[in-house]
């Protein structure tokens, strides 16, 4: 693939000796035989119009200094050997975004009350334009996100990506995993059919058998002696405000660290070291891990 043309020239890899044909385009035309055209008014206006978006961007950039960060982020190098396994994190992010968007539309029609929840879901499924489709996206998107987050965690585990200096990013990741499972648990009650009702009863009871905090946790979740109206609105608030907010904040921190630290290279790759340049102490430190 010739993707290099998408990279701004100063950031491109320099051509290797022998590549390219030295001469930089055609020779400049003679000024006498081809004098520069005088710009007409329309042409000037057209030029302005073309420049307008650039000017606007420059205006924003002067005030935010974002371009330095953005080019730094977009054109940062990812290490040699970066492969398809490294797409699992952004795939998880994508699944989360699908959940967020479809969730907003479901929230427009859903009523978190024990008497109306079931009917509002029927309404979404049967009457709302594309309702069943969006509901389906949200329902199956949750399974896909759970699968992807586990695959992504597996990748970082087997690649040893949780080791120095990325320990903190692993810890943030585990919290994201717990929060994602919390989303799955709290979302399951919302349709308020038999399946979701009894699964939540059992889930809350299981929490209640836990050591020390167990009973408090299940009391908090149930919000009363029986699973009922307060439970449902509590699950709803957790599912669409509390946990998503926390997830978004933590994904932000997670991605900040990804950009800041860079992603790992596959663990089986070793860089060829210029032997003479490395101090003796470090040669020893990496002596049994160098080139095969």
């Amino acid at each position, binding site marked *: *693939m010739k*993707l290099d043309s998408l*990279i701004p020239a100063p*950031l491109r890899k320099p051509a290797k000796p022998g590549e390219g044909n030295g001469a930089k385009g055609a020779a400049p035309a003679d000024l006498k035989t081809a004098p520069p055209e005088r710009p007409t008014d329309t042409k000037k206006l057209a030029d302005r119009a073309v420049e307008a978006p650039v000017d606007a961007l420059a205006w924003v950039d002067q005030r935010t200094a974002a371009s330095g960060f953005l080019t730094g982020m*977009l*054109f*940062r*190098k*990812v*290490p*040699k050997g*970066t492969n398809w396994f*490294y*797409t699992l994190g*952004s*795939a998880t992010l*994508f699944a989360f975004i*699908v959940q967020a968007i479809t969730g907003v539309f479901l929230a427009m029609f859903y009523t978190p009350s024990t008497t109306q929840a*079931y009917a509002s879901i029927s309404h979404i*499924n049967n009457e709302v334009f594309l309702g*069943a*489709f969006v509901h*389906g*996206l949200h329902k*199956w*998107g949750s*399974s*896909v996100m*759970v699968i992807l987050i586990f695959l992504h965690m*597996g990748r970082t*585990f*087997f*690649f*040893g990506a949780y080791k*120095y*200096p*990325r*320990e903190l990013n*692993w810890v943030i990741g585990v919290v994201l995993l717990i929060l994602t499972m919390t989303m*799955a*648990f709290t979302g399951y009650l919302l349709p308020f*059919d*038999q*399946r979701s009702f009894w699964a939540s009863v059992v*889930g809350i009871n*299981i929490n209640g*058998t836990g*050591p020390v905090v*167990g009973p408090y946790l299940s009391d908090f979740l149930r919000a009363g002696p029986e699973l*009922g109206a307060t439970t449902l609105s509590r699950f709803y608030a957790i599912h669409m405000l509390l946990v998503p907010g926390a997830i978004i904040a933590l994904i932000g921190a997670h991605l900040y660290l990804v950009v800041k630290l860079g992603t790992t*290279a596959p*663990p*089986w790759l*070793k*860089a060829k*070291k210029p032997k003479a340049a490395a101090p003796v102490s*470090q040669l020893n*430190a*990496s002596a049994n*891990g160098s080139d095969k």
Partner: protein
Amino acid sequence: MKPADKQAYLEEYELLKKKGKPFFPYAVMKDSAMMLLVAAVIIAMSIVLGAEQGPKADPTSTTYVPRPEWYFFFLFELLRVIKPPELVPIATIGIPTICMVLLLLLPFYDRGPERNPIRRPIATTAGVMTIVAMAYLTFLGATGGSPTEIEMEVAPRYEAGKEIVAGAGCLACHKIGENGGTIGPELTHIAQLVPRAAIVRSVEIGPDIMPSYRDLPPKKLNELADFLSSLD
């Protein structure tokens, strides 16, 4: 990891990064292709599998069989694999809590400099075993039904008795069809072995470690016996 190891890693990483390609467009291309695939899968699932509703929630029905969403099957299965009631809290909260803590603290107790999975035999084995265990429990959960469900097809007039047997916890000890434990004798073909009256007597007396179900209302006891004496 010793300071020298950290230094060596950072230098090594710097070299590999220098030899790499820019995030845009190379990694972005792969990421986008993967995202398109994910989108296609979710859309296809939504269209093919839909989002049907079950019957409306009814807090007064006690015979409904609770089933979690599939990704909690492994937790649910722990409940079944670990039988004695006093161990249940350990199974449901203790083990997951310990696993989560172990997972969270992983970078702090696995501090060796080696990253290649082939040369980290302990970590790699532990990881593979965890995946196999979770996959196995999820498979059991997907195929086994829940601890209070009998998945046997029966004639409509035996449905009521089947629900009672399922709800009364007989499966904790008896196997009926595909479901249940092996502490007591299997009841799948009980009608071949003993007559109806003997079944009723067993249920009322509760031989050996089996609890007595004398307090069941006569109607329920009747339906239960009808169901069991149809199993031949």
